């Protein structure tokens, strides 16, 4: 049976479903933004979306290409300065969910958006070594390092592959649970950290004790072998492994229309 949706659509809709109507969500650009707006346009019409550009309670009709597109401000309840955004709104404890993407994620849900190391043969990874020996410079941390600790919890969405799912990230830009899985234990004043990771293959959650990411749900038609093959460490599966519900017609319709509208808008340009 051929599914009537792509793995990317499955990922976005599943990520959207993780959000609920009464949440305040600090939205990263790209996949998180796509998912958050699908949520808002389907089951969570009242969800509060906040972007680090200072736009609060924004309701874009098209997806922003940048974190500070005009659409975000025009459709927002209000727009505050960037220092206020990071001080009062994020650090001040008003964000339920920080929604992030990443370039690399490891088994303790640490995120790397800083650097891919030239020498990845070393058995024990050290950010400092990677940083001094870059193979590829990535854009950097942006808002993520503090979103991850100051939001009450963190959702992550990222495409599943051995390039992204590595046993240890080359550099911890943004902490999940630390290289030993225990960093949050020493910091009672920060949030719970990543509670769910949504990929194009499955849903993962941290083990309550070890904080290691474990597959809790496979997307329809995806096998355990596929996930094992796409993950850079010996991935574990929950004993209560379930199958993720498929996207419904409305979700797919909203997502496709949103992407169409966005593509049309971003190729146009003009005076206000």
């Amino acid at each position, binding site marked *: 049976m051929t599914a009537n949706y792509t793995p990317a659509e499955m990922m976005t809709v599943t990520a959207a479903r993780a959000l609920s109507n009464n949440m305040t969500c600090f939205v990263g650009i790209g996949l998180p933004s796509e998912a958050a707006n699908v949520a808002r346009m389907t089951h969570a019409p009242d969800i509060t979306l906040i972007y680090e*550009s*200072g736009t609060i309670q924004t309701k874009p009709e098209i997806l922003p290409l940048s974190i500070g597109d005009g659409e975000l401000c025009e459709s927002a309840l209000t727009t505050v300065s960037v220092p206020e955004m990071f001080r009062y709104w994020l650090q001040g404890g008003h964000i339920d969910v920080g929604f992030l993407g990443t370039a690399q994620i490891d088994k303790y849900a640490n995120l790397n958006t800083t650097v891919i190391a030239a020498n990845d043969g070393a058995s024990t990874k050290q950010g400092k070594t990677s940083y001094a020996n870059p193979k590829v*410079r990535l*854009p950097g941390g942006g808002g993520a390092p503090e979103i991850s*600790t100051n939001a009450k919890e963190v959702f992550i969405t990222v495409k599943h592959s051995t390039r992204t799912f590595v046993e240890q990230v080359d550099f911890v830009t943004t902490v999940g649970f*630390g290289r030993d899985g225990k*960093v949050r234990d020493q910091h009672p004043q920060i949030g719970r950290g990543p509670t769910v990771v949504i990929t194009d293959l499955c849903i993962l959650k941290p083990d309550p004790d070890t904080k290691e990411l474990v597959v809790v749900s496979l997307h329809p038609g995806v096998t355990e072998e596929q996930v094992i093959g796409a993950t850079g460490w010996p991935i574990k599966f929950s004993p209560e492994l379930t199958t993720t519900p498929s996207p419904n017609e409305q979700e797919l319709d909203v997502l496709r229309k949103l992407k169409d509208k966005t593509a049309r808008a971003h*190729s146009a340009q003009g005076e206000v």
Partner: protein
Amino acid sequence: MAIFNSLQQAISESVNDGDTLALEGFTHLIPFAAGHEIIRQKKRELTLVRMTPDLIYDQLVGAGCAKKLIFSWGGNPGVGSLHRLRDAFQNDYPHALESVEHSHAAMANAYEAGAAGLPMAVFRGYIGSELPDVNDAISSVKCPFTGEELACVPAIKPDVGIIHAQKADRQGNVLIEGIVGVQKEVVLSSKCSIVTVEEIVDDLNAGPNSCVLPGWTINHIAVAPKGAHPSYAHGYYQRDNQYYLDWDAISRDRARFNQWLEDEILQTGAN
């Protein structure tokens, strides 16, 4: 008190080789016209501060103006990499580029502290991150009441702060509207400030709590219509997304970039 000047004069009177500059605007109101004039005037050895270097610093770095970059997210938003930055970092082209890398929260707080006249910013940040391992400017202080260790970074206090705004009135008071980013902070914390504006008006028509900078906080005002292009100016023009997309191919290739520099910047005058 703000002097109304041409952009060419404003830059030549304010920016010296070796200065620390912040050209800010968070996606919105990026002062591209001013950046291009800096390239045209061949300023060198600059320390460039910006949360998101964006195309404006990719261009300045590619043109050889920068010695050092202080930043927190160095991508082409929604498109990919900043290839001139990468080429400088990875291949020292056109020459070596030092970098000081922060998170957005750190930079935003550091601008706030600069505006507040403090030597450092204190915030709950960098917990579990390895950025402090590669950035000596990240320190900590202990709260004397709770014992909590908080992150601490030096305040940003540029020699020259440059922003673009929608409008100034004839007394040099400036209104910024929409996504206001860290622009007020940059002007208030800089030793010298330049504001480019879309237009000069008789009356700002600003609400009582709008983001307004009094003329006496600004050194130079230069009229630069479309001065934020290819970024945008709320109420004036939209973001030129195609420019951002097209930049990828230009920036990726040294020869194409140098040709762009020659044709679009060096052979053209300031507005």
